[in-house]
């Protein structure tokens, strides 16, 4: 996977007790992420591919690359469906 996920810039979010809480002004919904999802969320800056984030996650949490990748793919799917992120155009390299 090369497309770079980016947080929806219209959201308000804040970390509390190591976990991310997100408010969507559009529909006033509050969303919460657990610790792992919060770590990944902070890397959804539109410049890093899922594979690059997976490599960092695997190193940071001492998990297999494939497990890390699965976590990220799953989270992208959920957050994209909820319009909390957008998946940017694929990287050229």
């Amino acid at each position, binding site marked *: 996977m090369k497309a770079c996920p980016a947080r929806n810039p219209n959201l308000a979010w804040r970390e509390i007790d190591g976990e991310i809480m997100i*408010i969507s*002004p559009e529909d006033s919904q509050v969303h919460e992420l657990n610790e792992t999802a919060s770590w990944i969320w902070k890397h959804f800056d539109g410049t890093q591919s899922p594979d690059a984030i997976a490599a960092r996650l695997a190193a940071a949490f001492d998990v297999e690359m494939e497990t890390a990748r699965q976590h990220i793919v*799953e989270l992208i799917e959920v957050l994209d469906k909820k319009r909390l992120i957008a998946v940017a155009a694929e990287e050229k390299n």
Partner: protein
Amino acid sequence: MWRGEQRALPSVRGLRTGGSELSAAELRPGLDRPLQISIGRVPLRLFIPEGGLLRRARRRYGDFSSTGGVGLPIRLYRKGDAAATGAFSYNLEGASLVLRSKGAEFRGVRHEYALDSLLRILLTVVLLPRRGFLLHAATVVRDGRAYVFAGRSGAGKSTVASLSPSGSVLTDEISLLRWTAGGWRAYGTPFWGEFRAAGQNAHYPLAGIYSLVQASEERLEFLSAKAALRCLLPCVLFFAPERRAHESLLHTLVDFAADVPSHRLHFRRNAAFWKGIAA
């Protein structure tokens, strides 16, 4: 990984409708001499052109009157046909609020309840940069400190107020909380609910916040900052649609949740809950 937890922030809640209509031909005494009030240390000058509404407003906000000639001007117009352009605007059942750089305009206000509702909405915006917010909560003062009992409609706010000693209730419906003078303080508001004797114009340092849960026994459960924020969010009055406003609110609430001791209060709708709090 995803918890699937979603909660809606309330939009317009606890706002009254109805009330007595104004007569069409009233004097315009409020144009020259505005009604000056201060709520939560936010000075406001209300220019009310219609005598009937002005009289009711004086009665309703009398305990919150102030002097000094300063404050955010709020001009009322009976007609509601102005273009809604400004830093913030909101429409509510035929009435509207527009906040501009030089003050606010309320249009289409036909009775005191609409005025009350627009004032609440305006305050949520004006308080935001002042590290303040309005919360659906009753506040009771004990030994010089404010105990804030938060909950949505039916949670027991008025019950808590009615079970508290006379004169100790700061508000039974809408609490104004803000950071001032190096700490979080609770301010009385004129926005009352069922307990109509409430609405003291006073402020006290916060002892703690208690999220109300009706239960078969009294129990006090300490909440982490995150759990406290989770309880607070549905009780916050907030109307601004912009991301920056939400960011500002979230910033204030996270600080508040980290600073103020927070609890979930399971109670049986009797005065025994004070024993658990005092212990």
